[in-house]
C-alpha cells in the first residue's frame, strides 16, 4: 500500500478492482465501511463476479477476466478527452512533461525494441531526450508531440468506450458510469483509493494492470494524499514482510537486487541501481544504494567484508536468470534441480498445472517441507484416490517433514499491507516436536557450515564467514534478528556537517537509514527496516493509538517502513508552493522553514519549495516525479497495453486483430512444452477464473474444524445461462476440464455470474474457488491448480491463475 488500512476511511470514493476486499480482507474492509458510514464515500466494485465486496457496493460493473487494462485504459482515455485530470498535479508531479526520444514507437501492438526470438524488449528506445548537462528534456506546456502526455493521449485514444465494451464485455453504459464517478475525484478536495490484490497480480499482464491503475490515480492527483493511493492488499499476514526482506530468488533485502551474470564487478553493479538524478536538484534516493548495500554486506559477513574485497561482493551469486517458482519447477522437470526446501509453502496446492509440479517433485532426490500443518506437498507421493492418483512406488524422492510453529506460537513482527511492522507475542507453546522457523534454519545452517569447514568445497567462504552473532547459535531469538535488520554503528558515527557531533556511538542501534554509510562503519540487514529497533528499544511494540490530527495518522502505533512514514509520496499532498491541496486532509506541508504535519515528510525536511529547482515529491525516482511512462523497469512496455490472457475465449486481441504476436503478452516467458499445454476456445470454450472465499485461508484452514463446517465442500460457480444450456441444476455434480486435467465438484448456479457480451460474442465464465485438496478436515476435493496454465507475468512471473479456459459438463 502507498497508504494504509486506517487511511481508507478518508476516501470519498473507493474502487475495488482486481481484488475482493470484503471476501479476502474482512477485517481491513471495516475501513471501507467506515468511509461509507462516516465520510459518505461511495464504493465501486469492478469484478468478473458479483462478489461479497460487490454486495456492499454502490455501483458494480462486471468485466471479463484478464481485461482490466482495457477497462483502465478506457478510463485514462475518458479522463484525457474530458479534461478530467488534476492538471497542476500532473504537470508538476508526473513525467507528463518529459520528452521521449525519437526512437520510441508503438506499432500494431508491439513497442519498439522487440526481439521476437527471445520474447524480450530492449528498452533503449523508450528513453527520454537528454540535454547537454545529462538531464531529461521537459516541456512544461505538455504540448510537445513527444512529451509523455501527448504520447499517452495518442496511445489511449484507441481505448474508446465501444472498444472497451467489446473487449471487457462490460456494457458501455456501465463503463461510462464508472468513468464519471472516478472522474469526479480529479479535483483537489476529492480522493479516490484503489484497493487491489491478486485479481491484478495473477495475470500474464498483471504488473501492467497495476501500473495502469497507478496512472489513473496520478492523472487524478490521488497519490500521496490522505484517502488516496494505490493499495495492494497483501494475502498472507506477513507477505509484505516476505517481499521487504527479499525472499525472492534474485532479490536482496530492502528491494536491493542480486547482481546478474553481466555484473561481475561492483561498479557495474551500482551503475543501473544507484541512479543519478535526471532533473536538477532531485533527491533520487537510490543514489544511496551503496550505503544500503555495504551495510547489508557488513551485516552478513562482518569483518570478512572489507573495502579491499569490495565488501565481499564476490560472495554473492550472479544470476543468469530469474529463479522464480515456475523456473524452479521447470528445472526440476528437466532434471537440473534435484533438492528442494519448502518453508511455509505448498506448491502442489499453490502453483499451476499440478501435474507438472508433481512430476517435478517426483524427480527430486530430496524434499524438505517446513510447515505447521500437513500439506499436499508433504504428501505428494501418496495416493489419495481420485483426488490425487499417483503411483507411490514410482516416486523415489525422500521427503522430510519438519513441523514448525503457527504465528500465535511465536514472538515477532508481522508486516501488514500498510507497511506497519507490528510486534506480537506468542499466545501458546507449539505442540509436539514443532520448532520455530529460526531454530530449524539455524540447525540446518550450523550443520552445513561445519560440513564446509571440515570438507572445504568449491567456495566455502560465504558459508563459513557468515556472521552468526546469536547468544544461542542453534536458536536465534526474534529480538536478535530484529535488532540485526535494524542495524547498528560499528564505529562512532559523526555528523558530516559537524565532525564534533557524534550521531551514534560504536555498538549502538541506529535510529534510521539516514545514518547508513558505505565505508563499512554501519550494518543493516534490511535498510528499509532501519528504525524499527533503535537505541530506544523495539518501536514495533508501540501501542499508542492517539491520532492528534484526527485523520487516522497514529504515528506511535507500531512502526512503519520507511522511517515510520505512513503515506508514501506524502509531499505530493501539498501544492508546488508547499501548502496542502486540501486543508481538510493535511499530511505534510511547508511551514516556511521546514516540512512537517501529520506524517513523517517523504522529502528532505529542509527542501524549500521556493527554490529554483524545487525538490519534487517522488524522491525514489531519478526524475523526482512519478512515471506515467516507464522508460525502464518494465519488461513489457513503457505504457500498459491490453493483451489477451494466454488462454482466451477470443480468437484475436480486438486491439490488434491482424497481429497474432500481439494476442497475448509478447514479452511473457513461456517454457517449451507449456505452449502446447495451452487450450483453445474450440475445445475449452469458457473463460475461467480461480479465487478465494472468506471462510477459508488458502489451503490451511481446511485443517480447522470451524472453517470446514462453514464451507465444507468444493464447488464451482456458473451463471444461469450456462447452467441452462448444459442442463446443469444447482447442486449437480459437474466435471470441469482444461487442457491439463479435469476435476469434479458440485455446481452452484448463481445470478452473480453473468454472460459477457464481447462485441456480439457471448462469453460464459466458470468460477473456481480454491481451498480444497486431499489433506485436511474439510471434504476432500480436487486442487483447482490441476487446471491452471503454467505461465506468469512478464515482470514478476506470478502465474496466470485468474484467466484461463475450461469446459464444463454434467458429471
Amino acid at each position, binding site marked *: 500500500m502507498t497508504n494504509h488500512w486506517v487511511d481508507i476511511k478518508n476516501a470519498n470514493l473507493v474502487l475495488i478492482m482486481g481484488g475482493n476486499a470484503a*471476501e479476502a480482507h474482512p477485517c481491513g474492509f471495516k475501513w471501507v465501511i467506515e468511509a461509507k458510514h462516516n465520510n459518505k464515500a461511495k464504493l465501486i466494485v469492478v469484478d468478473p463476479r458479483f462478489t461479497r465486496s460487490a454486495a456492499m457496493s454502490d455501483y458494480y460493473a462486471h468485466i471479463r477476466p484478464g481485461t482490466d487494462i482495457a477497462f483502465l485504459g478506457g478510463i485514462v482515455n475518458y479522463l484525457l478527452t474530458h479534461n478530467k485530470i488534476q492538471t497542476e498535479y500532473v504537470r508538476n508531479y508526473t513525467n507528463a512533461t518529459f520528452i521521449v526520444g525519437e526512437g520510441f514507437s508503438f506499432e500494431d501492438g508491439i513497442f519498439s525494441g522487440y526481439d521476437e526470438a527471445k520474447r524480450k524488449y530492449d528498452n533503449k528506445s523508450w528513453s527520454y531526450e537528454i540535454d547537454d548537462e545529462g538531464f531529461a528534456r521537459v516541456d512544461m506546456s505538455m504540448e510537445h508531440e513527444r512529451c509523455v502526455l501527448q504520447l499517452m493521449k495518442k496511445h489511449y485514444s484507441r481505448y474508446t468506450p465501444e472498444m472497451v465494451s467489446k473487449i471487457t464485455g462490460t456494457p458501455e453504459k456501465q463503463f461510462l458510469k464508472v468513468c464519471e464517478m472516478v472522474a469526479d475525484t480529479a479535483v483537489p478536495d476529492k480522493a479516490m483509493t484503489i484497493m487491489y490484490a491478486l485479481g491484478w497480480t495473477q495475470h500474464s499482464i498483471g504488473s501492467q494492470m497495476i501500473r495502469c491503475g497507478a496512472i489513473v490515480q496520478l492523472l487524478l492527483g490521488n497519490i500521496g494524499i490522505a484517502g488516496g493511493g494505490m493499495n495492494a492488499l497483501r494475502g498472507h499476514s506477513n507477505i509484505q514482510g516476505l517481499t521487504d526482506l527479499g525472499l525472492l530468488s534474485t532479490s536482496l533485502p530492502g528491494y536491493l537486487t542480486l547482481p546478474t551474470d553481466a555484473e561481475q564487478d561492483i561498479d557495474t553493479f551500482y551503475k543501473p541501481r544507484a541512479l543519478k538524478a535526471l532533473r536538477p536538484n532531485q533527491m533520487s534516493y537510490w543514489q544511496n544504494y551503496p550505503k544500503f548495500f555495504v551495510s547489508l554486506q557488513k551485516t552478513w559477513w562482518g569483518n570478512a567484508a572489507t573495502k579491499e574485497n569490495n565488501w565481499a561482493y564476490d560472495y554473492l551469486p550472479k544470476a543468469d536468470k530469474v529463479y522464480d517458482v515456475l523456473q524452479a519447477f521447470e528445472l526440476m522437470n528437466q532434471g537440473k534441480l534435484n533438492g528442494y526446501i519448502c518453508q511455509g509453502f505448498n506448491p502442489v496446492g499453490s502453483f499451476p498445472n499440478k501435474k507438472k509440479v508433481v512430476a517435478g517433485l517426483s524427480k527430486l532426490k530430496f524434499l524438505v517441507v517446513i510447515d505447521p500443518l500437513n500439506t499436499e506437498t508433504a504428501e505428494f507421493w501418496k495416493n489419495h484416490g481420485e483426488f490425487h492418483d499417483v503411483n507411490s512406488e514410482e516416486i523415489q524422492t525422500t521427503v522430510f517433514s519438519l513441523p514448525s510453529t503457527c504465528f500465535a506460537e511465536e514472538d515477532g513482527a508481522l508486516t501488514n499491507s500498510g507497511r506497519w511492522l507490528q510486534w506480537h507475542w506468542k499466545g501458546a507453546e507449539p505442540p509436539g516436536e514443532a520448532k520455530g522457523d529460526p531454530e530449524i534454519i539455524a540447525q540446518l545452517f550450523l550443520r552445513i557450515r561445519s560440513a564446509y569447514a571440515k570438507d572445504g568445497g568449491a567456495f566455502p567462504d560465504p558459508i563459513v564467514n557468515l556472521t552468526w552473532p546469536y547468544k544461542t547459535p542453534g536458536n536465534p531469538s526474534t529480538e536478535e534478528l530484529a535488532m540485526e535488520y535494524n542495524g547498528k554503528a560499528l564505529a562512532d558515527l559523526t555528523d558530516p556537517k559537524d565532525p564534533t557531533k557524534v550521531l551514534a556511538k560504536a555498538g549502538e542501534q541506529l535510529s534510521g537509514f539516514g545514518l547508513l554509510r558505505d565505508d563499512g562503519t554501519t550494518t543493516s540487514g534490511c535498510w528499509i527496516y532501519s528504525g524499527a529497533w533503535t537505541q530506544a528499544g523495539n518501536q514495533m511494540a508501540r501501542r499508542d493509538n492517539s491520532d492528534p490530527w484526527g485523520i487516522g495518522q497514529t504515528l506511535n502505533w507500531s512502526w512503519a517502513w520507511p522511517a515510520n512514514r505512513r503515506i508514501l509520496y506524502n509531499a505530493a499532498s501539498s501544492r508546488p508552493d508547499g501548502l496542502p491541496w486540501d486543508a481538510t486532509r493535511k499530511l505534510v506541508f511547508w511551514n516556511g522553514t521546514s516540512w512537517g504535519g501529520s506524517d513523517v515528510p517523504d522529502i528532505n525536511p529542509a527542501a524549500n519549495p521556493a527554490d529554483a529547482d524545487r525538490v519534487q515529491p517522488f524522491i525514489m525516482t531519478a526524475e523526482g516525479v512519478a512515471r506515467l511512462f516507464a522508460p525502464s523497469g518494465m519488461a513489457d512496455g513503457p505504457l500498459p497495453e491490453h493483451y489477451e490472457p494466454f488462454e482466451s475465449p477470443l480468437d484475436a486481441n480486438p486491439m490488434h486483430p491482424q497481429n497474432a504476436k500481439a494476442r497475448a503478452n509478447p514479452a511473457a516467458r513461456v517454457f517449451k512444452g507449456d505452449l502446447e499445454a495451452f487450450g483453445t476456445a474450440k475445445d475449452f470454450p469458457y473463460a475461467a477464473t480461480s479465487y478465494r472465499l472468506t471462510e477459508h485461508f488458502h489451503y490451511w484452514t481446511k485443517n480447522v474444524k470451524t472453517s470446514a463446517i462453514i464451507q465444507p465442500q468444493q464447488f464451482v460457480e456458473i451463471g444461469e445461462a450456462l447452467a441452462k444450456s448444459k442442463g446443469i441444476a444447482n*447442486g449437480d455434480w459437474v466435471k470441469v476440464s482444461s487442457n491439463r486435467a479435469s476435476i469434479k465438484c458440485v455446481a452452484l448456479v448463481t445470478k452473480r455470474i453473468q454472460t459477457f457480451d464481447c462485441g456480439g460474442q457471448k462469453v460464459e465464465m466458470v468460477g473456481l474457488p480454491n481451498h480444497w485438496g486431499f489433506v485436511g478436515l474439510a471434504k476432500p476435493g480436487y486442487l483447482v491448480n490441476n487446471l491452471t496454465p503454467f505461465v506468469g507475468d512478464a515482470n514478476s512471473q506470478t502465474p496466470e491463475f485468474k484467466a484461463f479456459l475450461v469446459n464444463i459438463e454434467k458429471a
Partner: protein
Amino acid sequence: MSSLQSLDIAARSATTTATPHARSTMEVAKLIDVSSCIGCKACQVACMEWNDLRDEIGHNVGVYDNPADLSAQSWTVMRFSEVEMPTKDEGSRLEWLIRKDGCMHCADPGCLKACPAPGAIVKYDNGIVDFIQEHCIGCGNCLIGCPFNIPRFSKKDDKAYKCTLCSDRVSVGLEPACVKTCPTGAIRFGTKEDMHEFAAERITDLKERGFENAGVYDPEGVGGTHVMYVLQHADKPELYHGLPANPTISPMVSVWKGVTKPLAVAAMIGAAVLGFLHYVKVGPLNSDEEKDKEEV
C-alpha cells in the same frame, strides 16, 4: 442456559407464580445492519467457539449457506439471497442480501407461550429469551409457537436449542460473542433505545444512497424484538430469505394459552393423580429389576 442470578426473570413458561421486579434492568437489543454485513460467517464461528458447539462438516448443496440450516449445534447461520431489484436508469440491479438468522428474542415470545414445561423457557427483564434445557421435555411446542422457525432439537438429548443472545456474557456486562467478532461492525449491541438511534443513522445513510424503503425491522406482531435488522428494503422483508413481514404467534398457541391450557393443566394433574394411584397399587417401577438382582 440455566437461570442467571444477575438477570431477573420477567416471564417463565407454564408458570403462574409472580416474577421478581425489584431490580430495574435496561432493555437490550442486538442490531444487525444487513447493509454492512459481508457474510463472512465470523459470527457463526464465534458462536461455535463461545458456546462449544461443533456441527457436522456437511455438504455443499449449491449455496453459500453453510451449515445449510440452523441446528442444535448451529444457533446462527447466514442466509444468502440473490435478488434483482428494479432501478430508475438501468432496468434492474442485482443485490446479494446476506442475513444473519437466529432467535429474534421477541418481546412476546411465542415459544414461551407455547411451552408446557414449567421454566423451560424464560424471558429475562432485559428482553433475552432463554431455553433452560434441563426443564425441556422435548415436546416441540416451542417450534410451533415460534413465528421465525428458530428452535431446533438435538438428537442426542431430544431438547430444544437456540441462540441465547449470550445471556451468560450479557449477565456479566459483555456483548454477545457474535457482536464482539463482527469485523465490519454490522452487528451491534446495546440498549434497545441506543440501537434504534443507531439504526436511524444507518437508515438516513441508506436513503441517501437510493434505498428509499430502508428501515428497521422490529415487528409489532410479536411485541417487537430484541434482535433487530436494518434492511435496505424494509417494505419487503421476505426478500431476505423469507423474513416474515408480519410475524405473529400461531393461533394454535393462543388457543392453547386461552381456552385449552386450563384443560391441559387439569389433564396433567389428572395424569399425576393416576400415576400416584398406580404407584400405590403396583409399587415402584424398578421393583422387578431388584428382584432379578436378588435371584442372581
